[in-house]
């Protein structure tokens, strides 16, 4: 099961990289926003990976708190960046 977990996260990581690469040609963002965006994505993946391992080991509480402590801030940061910096350039995303 752990191997399956790593395989899934390999796919998620690839999708994340592709999404960021797509975003990079569609919108212009300053370097620190890119940094925050990448860290937020990694935080979300880290929290999900932690939660996956915790559920596998049978300590669901650890998984739940990892989602709150790691993935939660990542999602909040991405939401804020999206609203503040990416949505104003939304027209570029579909062109």
């Amino acid at each position: 099961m752990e191997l399956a977990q790593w395989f899934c996260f390999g796919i998620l990581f690839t999708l994340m990289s592709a999404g960021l690469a797509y975003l990079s040609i569609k919108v212009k963002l300053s370097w620190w926003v890119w940094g925050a965006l990448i860290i937020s994505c990694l935080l979300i993946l880290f929290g999900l990976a932690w939660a996956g391992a915790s559920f596998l080991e049978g300590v669901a509480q650890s998984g739940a708190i990892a989602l709150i402590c790691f993935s939660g801030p990542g999602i909040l940061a991405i939401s804020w960046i999206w609203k503040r910096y990416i949505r104003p350039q939304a027209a570029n995303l579909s062109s």
Partner: protein
Amino acid sequence: MTNDPSNINQDQEGVESTIVSEKQSDQGTDLSRRTFFKRFAVGGGAALLGGGATYAAGSASVEGRIAKDYPETNEDFKPFRQKNTTLSYAASPVLAARDNTRMEQFKKLHDKPADYFWPKLFQHFEHNVPYDNSRPGFTQLDGALQHASWMPWANWSGPKGKMLLFGGTGVPNTPPYTWDQSDKHENKHQFTDAKEAADAVRSAGRLFGALRVGIARNDKRWNYDPIYDLTQDKELSWEKDFPFKPKSVIVMVVPMDYDGMATAPSRVSAATAGIGYTQMAVLAGAMKHFMNGLGYNAVGAGNDLAISGAYGIMAGLGEGGRNNCLLVPGYGPRVRICKVFTDFDFEDEYDQPHTWGITEFCKSCKKCADACPSQAISHSTEPSFYPDHERAKEPGYNWSNHIGVKKFHTDAKRCVDYWLETDSDCGACIASCTFNEPDFWHHWFIMAINPFTPKLIHGLMAELHPAFGYGSTQNPEKVKKFWRTGEGMRVNKHNKSTFGTSNIS
């Protein structure tokens, strides 16, 4: 309109401009696509490199760094007299009858009755308290497990009374840890070099069931001197009585089950320790016979002959913790230690003490001290050369403490007294330890970053450990969980039920 030359020009220009625009658009799309793939490849490659470097740094971190400052001793340090271990005293009616002062100390611990006699209780240890089928962890089911976990032939009434339980109290030369060298091969096997020998010993240890195998030099500082045999009330000398002059000590660590120990304190956690003792005997016994078969002298040891924790540190297997246990990376104190003394010389292949920042972490984390039901563990921030527990200042009280070596000292008398009160081996300090974790990547991640985290973060990590759902003690739910860990064992598709953790939430 089409006849108008100007219109024709305009139309031609319009068509041309449309074509140019489409070409530019195609070029733009190609450029965007090319840029996308380029950035995807560069970004993904950079991330892979970063991930690889992080993994390499983490792997190096869990190898540990050599601890040059271990051990720190002062002028009061000397090898420990085994007669003064709490277990020797607890198990020996002769010693107890001879020194009433010490019995008075025990009586004062928890207002014991006037006829309280520790060794009498210890003789029937784990059989003193009736089962309570309404109390999870102390039912007949739990008790049957507890008693079965020790080797079936390990009981007090066996031949000469020298069995595994006696070995557990430190009695030397019991059948599992015999001093007999009669099966030593007449031909001494010659290894190509010391590394080949060390690798062979570690491989044999792994096969016999060791979690880790370290090799230390024989070190008189950690050997009990004199050795004490409580069954004969006799002190034994390394020079006159031990069958040979040891050069090396092979130190092996036996894992204990996570879910079993998580039930502490209970008869189930006692069973977890009991099966650990059984495995120690098998492992040390097998390694002793392996060395004998190679033509060298060897004697296996459980809790006897030497201080196991100190030898574990000297062999680079872990660090000393606040609960006075060896804390092994990836397992914490959830291990048992056995040793094999041999006259084989491993030359330059001896292991050295290592650090992973564990003792440093213990300074901030006091979870084991908080969890200890008998308050036997110090809450002091710094380790010290002398015990500093509640009654440490009383004259003659510290006879069971090894003074003069810098560490966290415990009040072992309180600890064993609680064992007798509950008829179990407790284990609360093991179950509650922040380093006691199942074998999953996120715990290794914490282990890897621990040496680089500041003290302030250590305190936070210690607080987060229970918040994340680990380390609770006196929790009946853990007992129920343990008794469901056998589900799925016909296939055991996670391979996690052996010593690690079950997949039962």
